[in-house]
């Protein structure tokens, strides 16, 4: 990975939510990078910090509570953590766009679909497009996601869930962003529509050459769409690699193993699935050693005391004590 190709470079990013009563450690020292045109899958349980990471990238953390405590996010050569709000607004929607999780709530019920797609275009109208040109672009975007442009005068309630998600995607794509963050874009949809929407996202990404961060807890989606995969647990990236590293390789973080074991497999016959026992640690009070140690079946003494270092092998890196030990032996 040469530096020139990196469009997004996150270094040692930590984010907390601070209230009067407690401090929630949502993201802890995440280091990630993304090349132009590549897709990164961000996998993890609910509460692992995936959405917080995405919101931090957009600088949309809740103002009064969410704070970045350390690290940097370099997007196209600029550290966006220090950018003034006015400049950040120019990036949002234009350079980095986000597809939201729930199409039922992320569209404004009193504005027509066309007006909502046109909004980002109007806000980022540096080239001085005329009204007609914006309308034409709205039509074009709608066609792109497979909705007849004539429906742009309709309101969100006149669309089905799958169609609404297309509208949400159309909004994100309207300005042709360099980076698209898809925050569980299919969780609110049923399976057949899921497949359609995923196909479409993948198709559009390839056609427009957009980089993408796909946040999901569905490993199937990751296998279908992503070049690189990062597994998140309790605010840390515990395993990072190419899709082959994660899906084909045998060496894994025990948590990733657990994730795969809890999925039904078509080929082997199992009577029961094996869930990972226990719950995520309380993010206000994280274990001092490895964050996964309390639930880990291969937990050792050192895991409870010392946070593990990253073990790297080619493109594949794992944050676990197990592999450091095997290397020493």
């Amino acid at each position: 990975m040469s530096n020139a190709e990196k469009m997004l470079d996150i270094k040692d990013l930590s984010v907390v939510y601070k209230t009067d009563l407690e401090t929630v450690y949502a993201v802890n020292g995440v280091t990630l990078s993304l090349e132009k045109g590549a897709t990164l899958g961000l996998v993890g349980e609910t509460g692992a910090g995936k959405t917080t990471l995405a919101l931090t990238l957009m600088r949309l953390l809740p103002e009064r509570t969410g704070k970045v405590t350390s690290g940097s996010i370099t997007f196209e050569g600029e550290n966006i953590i220090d950018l003034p709000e006015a400049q950040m607004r120019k990036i949002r929607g234009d350079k980095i766009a986000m597809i939201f999780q729930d199409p039922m709530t992320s569209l404004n019920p009193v504005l027509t679909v066309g007006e909502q797609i046109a909004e980002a275009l109007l806000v980022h109208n540096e080239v001085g497009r005329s009204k007609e040109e914006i309308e034409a672009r709205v039509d074009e975007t709608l066609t792109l996601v497979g909705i007849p442009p004539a429906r742009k005068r309709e309101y969100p309630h006149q669309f089905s869930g799958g169609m609404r998600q297309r509208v949400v995607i159309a909004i994100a794509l309207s300005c042709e962003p360099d980076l698209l963050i898809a925050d569980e874009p299919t969780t609110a949809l049923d399976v057949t529509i899921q497949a359609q929407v995923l196909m479409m996202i993948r198709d559009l990404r390839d056609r427009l050459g957009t980089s993408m961060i796909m946040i999901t807890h569905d490993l199937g989606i990751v296998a279908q769409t992503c070049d690189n995969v990062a597994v998140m647990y309790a605010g840390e990236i515990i395993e990072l690699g190419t899709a082959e590293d994660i899906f084909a390789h045998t060496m894994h973080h025990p948590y990733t193993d657990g994730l795969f074991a809890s999925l039904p497999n078509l080929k082997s016959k199992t009577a029961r699935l094996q869930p990972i026992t226990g719950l995520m640690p309380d993010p206000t009070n994280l274990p001092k050693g490895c964050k996964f140690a309390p639930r880990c079946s291969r937990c050792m003494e050192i895991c409870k005391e010392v946070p593990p270092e990253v073990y790297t092998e080619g493109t594949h890196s794992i944050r676990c004590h197990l592999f450091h030990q095997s290397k020493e032996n």
Partner: protein
Amino acid sequence: MAKNSTRPVVATLDGEDINFKRPSQTKEILRRLRKNKGAMIGLFLLICIVLVVIFADFIAPYEAGVVQVAENKLAPMSPEHPLGCDSYGRDVLSRLVHGARNSLLVAVAASISSCLFGCTLGAIAGYFGGKIDMLIMRALDIFMSIPDLLFTMVVVAALSSSIPVLIIAMTLAYFTNYVRLVRSGVLNLVDQEYVEAARAGGSSSARIIISHIIPNTLGIILVNVTLNVSSLVIYQSTLSFIGLSLPAPAPEWGSMLSSARVDMMRAPLLVVFPALAIVLTAFSVNLLGDGLRDAMDPRLKN
């Protein structure tokens, strides 16, 4: 995967764009408004009242309502004085018609200005929250702790009575409702995902308030405006009833009521006409406002 493919993601069976013809937004609202009988009655009455206001000079001469004629004192209905004369010998019809001008102008202007002022403050308080919210709401508490009438009296007494002063005084008495109403609406809305989505699209706070939050609270605002127009018509009558409105000879519904009260036993109709005018105006505005709210809500469509 094939790049640069031109295949549409979803194609219709014959490969053509399906044509959805929809009537325009305004036509649609008007169509639904027309179906609402109550609203149409309200609209009709309101148009009549507005026509009276515009053509007041053709219906009855202004002088007849201001100049006192001793021999006409409490004159009964007659061809020259269709609604009779009051205790000063002034023509009731011309007072009523010209009074509509003063009463309605002040009421409508005050409700519009109190709406604009209150909504702006409420939206700012709800959207930004924190210290700004605190400051606005506590100032509002102080405003609300002073009785409306007392407050208006102080303002009118300090600035002397004229139409602009009346409008300001009534605005200050009525804008508090809007602040609280809009603020609570906004508090519900700022957490909505589409507001976050708009922010993710790069929209500024002002834009989000104007294009996302205000349209969503428009329903309640609109109903409140119409309720307020009617209560302001009544409030203005109250003010002129206690003599706080325009100086003496100027015709006004409220002052007509208060002067007619003295002769209520001898000429009961003198009370009825201005009272009827106040009630009819309030009623028609209410009806229309209710209908408009229903017609403008896109969620009630189809």
